[in-house]
């Protein structure tokens, strides 16, 4: 039939797809390249930078930030943002610290679970407020921090009051891999698999990509939004336990300002602020980059002020690059399409 013939010459558009995948790779390889350059430069200036102790510090710091960034990425993919993670981390660290101080026999695994549950509860609260109360998690940032101050008062939990086993967990390794890093990797792997390979994960991307279309497609938007906040909260709670184990010293201000570092890590790692795209793997790389930058500046004896400026520049660069690439891709797609 003639009709078939007329339809055939339209649409052959493999090329834009190729552009897309290269872009995503470009973002991640860009971060890797920046990391290599940064590390190489710093190492030539100060050889101690590559000492076992220094690398271990970077990895432990990254692990905590990456656990938070994975949770944040999950929320941001749904076109939301969880600004309470720093407060949840602080609350969880203090709560678990108090628990261990008063009950020296509590095993580490129970401490971890306690953090997860406490954080998860805060996350559900956030999710319900965001979804049904239409208020952003900014409120809980202050509210939870307030609870923490109220509870902790001026007191501080010191390392010498915490069980030996717990502190060991924060600083020791199994088969050469620190426990904290191992936990970070497990979180990253599970989140990657769920986001890529399960309906629930794909629905989160769909919700962020188009909220109205998600409702019409029969996706349970409320349930999924709350679930995303629950995961982010639970991971922040977990990060609080890791924080307590690593530093041993906890006061009411623990984790203050972390939320912005976490959002920065996710954005630098390619998670779109407007939802629908990005990976937890990218967000974790972002966390690594930010931690390495902080560490390099310290080693190079550069004013801490510069760290803020550099992180700011990186965010601008990341968002700018996204915009540029998006418009390029859009143009490429249009060109191909109109080639009738």
């Amino acid at each position, binding site marked *: 039939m003639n009709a078939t013939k007329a339809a055939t010459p339209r649409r052959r*558009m493999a090329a834009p797809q190729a552009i897309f995948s290269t872009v995503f790779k470009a973002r991640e390889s860009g971060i890797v390249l920046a990391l290599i350059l940064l590390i190489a430069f710093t190492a030539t200036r100060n050889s101690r930078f590559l000492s076992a102790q220094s690398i271990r510090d970077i990895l432990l710091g990254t692990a905590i930030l990456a656990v938070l960034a994975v949770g944040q990425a999950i929320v941001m993919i749904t076109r939301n943002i969880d600004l309470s993670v720093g407060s949840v981390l602080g609350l969880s660290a203090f709560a678990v610290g108090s628990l261990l101080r008063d009950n020296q026999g509590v095993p580490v695994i129970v401490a971890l679970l306690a953090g997860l549950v406490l954080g998860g509860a805060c996350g559900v609260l956030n999710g319900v407020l965001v979804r049904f109360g239409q208020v952003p998690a900014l409120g809980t940032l202050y509210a939870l921090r307030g609870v923490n101050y109220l509870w902790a008062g001026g007191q501080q939990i010191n390392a010498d009051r915490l069980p030996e086993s717990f502190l060991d967990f924060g600083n020791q390794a199994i088969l050469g891999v620190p426990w904290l890093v191992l936990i970070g990797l497990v979180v990253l792997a599970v989140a990657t698999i769920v986001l890529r390979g399960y309906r629930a994960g*794909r629905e989160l991307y769909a919700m962020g*990509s188009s909220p109205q*279309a998600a409702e019409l497609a029969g996706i349970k938007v409320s349930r999924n939004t709350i679930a995303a906040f629950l995961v982010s909260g639970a991971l922040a709670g977990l990060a609080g336990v890791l924080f307590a184990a690593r530093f041993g010293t906890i006061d009411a201000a623990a984790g203050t300002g972390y939320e912005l570092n976490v959002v920065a890590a996710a954005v630098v790692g390619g998670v779109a602020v407007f939802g629908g*795209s990005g990976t937890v793997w990218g967000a974790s790389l972002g966390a690594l980059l930010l931690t390495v930058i902080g560490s390099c500046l310290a080693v190079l004896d550069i004013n801490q002020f510069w760290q803020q400026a550099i992180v700011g520049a990186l965010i601008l660069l990341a968002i700018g690059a996204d915009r540029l690439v998006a418009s390029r891709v859009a143009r490429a797609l249009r060109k191909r399409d109109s080639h009738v």
Partner: protein
Amino acid sequence: MMRQNPGPAPLLEVRDVSKSFGAVAAVAGVSFPLYAGEAHALVGENGAGKSTIVKMLAGVHRPDTGTLVLDGAPVDFGSPAEARAAGIAVIYQEPTLFPDLSVAENIVMGRHPRGRLGMIDRAAVRAEAEGLFSRLGVRIDVERPARGLSIADQQIVEIAKALGADARLLIMDEPTAALSLVEVERLFTVAGTLREEGAAIMFISHRFEEITALCQRVTVMRDGRHVSTDPIDDLTVEEMVRRMVGRDLDALFPKQEVEPGAVVLEVEGLARQGVFRDISFSVRAGEIVALAGLVGSGRSEVVQAVFGVDERDAGSVRLKGKRLRAGSPRAAMAAGMALVPEDRRQQGLLMDLSIERNVNLPRSGALARLGFLFGGGERREARRWTERLRTRYGRLSDAVGTLSGGNQQKVVLAKWLATDPRVLIVDEPTRGIDVGTKAEVHRLMSALAAEGVAVLMVSSELPEVLGMADRVLIMREGRIVAEIPRAEATEDSVMFAAMGQEAAA
């Protein structure tokens, strides 16, 4: 065509449903049956309540009173998910895709085929999407993201999505507005197959030739009320229109005879790489020139380049002999040109802003006093134009998004007419709007031409092209291939030129 007896029990029955939004009754006491194995047309002017009925069936809205009866038992859909689970699939008028996700994922979202450990089976997702596209006879790369698809392709993805849901009731809310003839034919073949397999189809369209080609039964609605339900063979098109409008329509295409004046718009050698080339034409004062051709032939791209929204690689555009700067809509507007775009939701209106703000947007500079906009002048201007266009709305301060499609289109027109243009470019001026509004838009275009405005119209609707245009320019594959004066323009001559040699071979 032989019509099977649908049997006594309908698959789904709409029973005395009503739905109000605030004080406005969108649907009042409507009942009609949908039979398995039958395609049922729902017709009515925009604002007659068709889309509200669709949304109730889709689980988006709950009826205030009345019930939906599925397989003899009342159902109450609390969410779109419940309607989907009951076997109802909807192709919405406006595509509802996920721009960041692949075409294949868009199609299977919410019901991904799963394999080992409950994980998504990617190969099966791909295969399902490709299978659906081959049923529809189109080739779209299923791995590409939905972002950047043309409106026609988006609509095809919507159709594939609904087909993939294996629906017992398939609702199509103006699915063909953006499609080319070939694609419409394909869609109807597939819909026909579904119907023979025992699915019920509800079809909404403003094109009567499509309704008579596809459907066996037709329900007419007017002002939110049920007018009639009949077998389609018992009703002539004239009778359908009369029932929809509630009065006899005057001639649908009231083009007044106008003696064309001086040349106002001159386009010479316009080209954009990979899109169109060698575009030269002129439009005189008082003339309506139509730019016809298949979807994708480059018509919209040409007018966008003329107006300066898109860049051009070569060529010139002159308005009253004055050369316009390329790529500057601002310069085009200052010279007296106006463009009413094809996609009113995306390009024509700011949905969240008020009617008056939208109408006055291109002239906010001229209306402002000391850089501020004051309510009085804005309201006066907006009222003048919305009245001339007989726009129906509650208050001028209502958001444009709350209006029906036809009235939205009138606001876009009002917005550009308020700039008092010498050249008016309209891209699909009556797409997706009802017969009554259509006639008003046509009358208005004709009146403007009589006042000496040069009108350039892009249209996919042949009757509109033939009825309104003094001259028809036909585009194919990015070039103007024919120019036909009004006297010689017929359905055959225009289609032949638009299809080109392929149709002849």
